[in-house]
């Protein structure tokens, strides 16, 4: 009996330790990835990397200025397209809609959220590239923006619904119309949450490569405007990593480091904003 109990205690301690090991291993992966990128790519990052164009194979130096600017442009376009739809759509869901409409819209958003990014790429190609017969920054921004819609919509709605009823009633009691209540009371009360949602959505699409392959395509020079194809960090990493050249591999590591730091910083800032407290007391 005693031996059996000791065995059970041993099994318990052993298995619980194993779960701890699982957790540690999983978290260690993050630091391993970061460490690898710093080790392999850190030395290739210098001023030129951010300010110069890529150079042909064999020449030393050069940078990824066009890809960095391209990623910035794509993210800006994506935000301009995806956030208004997500934001105003969420206001409709939280404040105006009946339950059937809300169900349909939520369902569509969840469905869109689950669509593999490569399929989004196909759709964006059909809508924004094929009719114009050329790749463009607009098309890339459209593809990424589409992916931002469901994230922004669902989180914004949640934060709007979390605003206490008393605030609404207070505004209404003072004679404000519904839209005035929304614009001056509800949205300001939820703005931290909404900002977090938008930032997380940006971080999520910043590293997306697949939807850009058929839309923004890539460019070894500066893009000649938003109607032209553009380089982007993820796409450059992809093509450089698959190339046979040592030099380009180093550049790929460096670009990977820049991209990862960008994504992680946006994530951390977003969560920081939220954890400093939602600006309304929950009653």
């Amino acid at each position, binding site marked *: 009996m005693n031996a059996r109990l000791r065995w059970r205690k041993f099994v*318990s301690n052993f298995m619980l330790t194993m779960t701890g090991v699982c957790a540690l291993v999983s978290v260690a992966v993050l630091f391993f990835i970061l460490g690898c990128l710093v080790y392999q790519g850190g030395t290739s990052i210098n001023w030129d990397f951010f300010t110069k164009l890529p150079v042909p194979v064999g020449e030393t130096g050069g940078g990824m200025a066009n890809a960095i600017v391209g990623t910035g442009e794509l993210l800006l376009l994506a935000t301009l397209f995806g956030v208004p739809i997500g934001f105003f759509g969420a206001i409709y869901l939280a404040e105006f809609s009946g339950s059937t409409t809300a169900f349909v819209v939520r369902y569509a958003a969840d469905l869109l959220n689950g669509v593999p990014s490569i399929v989004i790429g196909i759709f964006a190609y059909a809508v924004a590239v094929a009719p114009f017969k050329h790749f463009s920054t607009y098309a890339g921004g459209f593809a990424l923006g589409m992916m931002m819609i469901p994230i922004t919509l669902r989180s914004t709605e949640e934060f709007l619904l979390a605003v206490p009823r008393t605030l609404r009633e207070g505004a209404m009691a003072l004679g404000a119309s519904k839209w005035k209540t929304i614009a001056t009371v509800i949205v300001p009360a939820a703005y931290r949450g909404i900002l977090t949602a938008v930032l997380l959505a940006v971080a999520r699409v910043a*590293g997306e490569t697949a939807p850009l392959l*058929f839309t923004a395509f890539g460019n070894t020079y500066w893009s000649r405007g938003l109607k032209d194809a553009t380089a982007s960090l*993820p796409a450059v990493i992809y093509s450089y990593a698959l190339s046979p050249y040592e030099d380009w591999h180093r550049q790929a590591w460096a670009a990977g480091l820049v991209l990862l730091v960008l994504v992680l910083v946006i994530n951390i800032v977003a969560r920081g904003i939220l954890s400093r407290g939602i600006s309304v007391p929950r009653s």
Partner: protein
Amino acid sequence: MATTTTPVPDASPISGSRTFLSRLTDGDEIARAITFVFAASVVLITVLLVLSLWQGSVLARHKFGFSFFVTQVWDPNAGIFGALPFIYGTLVTAIVSLLIAVPLGIGAAIFLAELAPARVSDTLEFFIDLLAAVPSVIYGVLGIFLIVPLMRSYIEPALKKTLGFLPLFQGPAYGIGFLTAGIVLAVMIIPYIISVSREVLLSVPRDQREAALSLGSTRWESTWKVVVPFARTGIMGSIFLALARALGETMAVTMVIGNTPKISASLLASGYSIAAAIANEFNEASSPLHSQALIELGLVLFLLTFILNGLARLLILATSQRGSGMGNA
């Protein structure tokens, strides 16, 4: 405190007395209309997406019909398009990744939900969330430059030596292939399994644990025989969610799977996945039929992930409702 219920004046007569015109001048109707347009456009975009996949693959669907799914040959020059090698590659890599990620992910989730103090658990969860945010192309870079050489020189030869009698581990060790793709995918989906399973485990009511402990079970027994079974459906949901991610994952898989449209029993052989085929061939499609076949692949991928995501949501919802229901009782 009040003994008699004073009839609360209903809100409807007041709002009823406001005519449509007054609401219009208030701006309420305008605000409703504007926000409705945005909400409706979400539905519109989603419908358009499905329609465009359906319309875009009409040629291929009519030409090949069901044989598209069972034909093993993918030869753009001859105009023969069979999706089987891609479907096979997608499923095999997904299964390999689940075999690795599920035990690890659930183990970690148990630690975070059951053992770790709240502060530690939240901190680790923060890192897990960051891990989920690492872009797929970066996993691809690590895969190519670190995991592939490691597999080629050490792991695959070792597997061949010990388990080489199985057809799963035969053939030359290139480093690229199903196994490597599965391992990279596993690392990518672990954060999803951990996050969702942790939530689900945390929603299991406290009295379940206390009852098991008071009956004399050890901490592990209460976790494994009571808490985990209670959360079973939700954990299944997290696995489905991860599976949907694994199926749709493009860049990392494209970079390490080898991109050969062939079906091989060996996990060491190189193969192809649906998403990788689209990524590699869509821009260079040689004929309308070729690009239509690729769009049909996209449609297949869409339907697979759609079904899995739907199931996952149902399962997770079922558990969290069960948890809260029991908790209130």
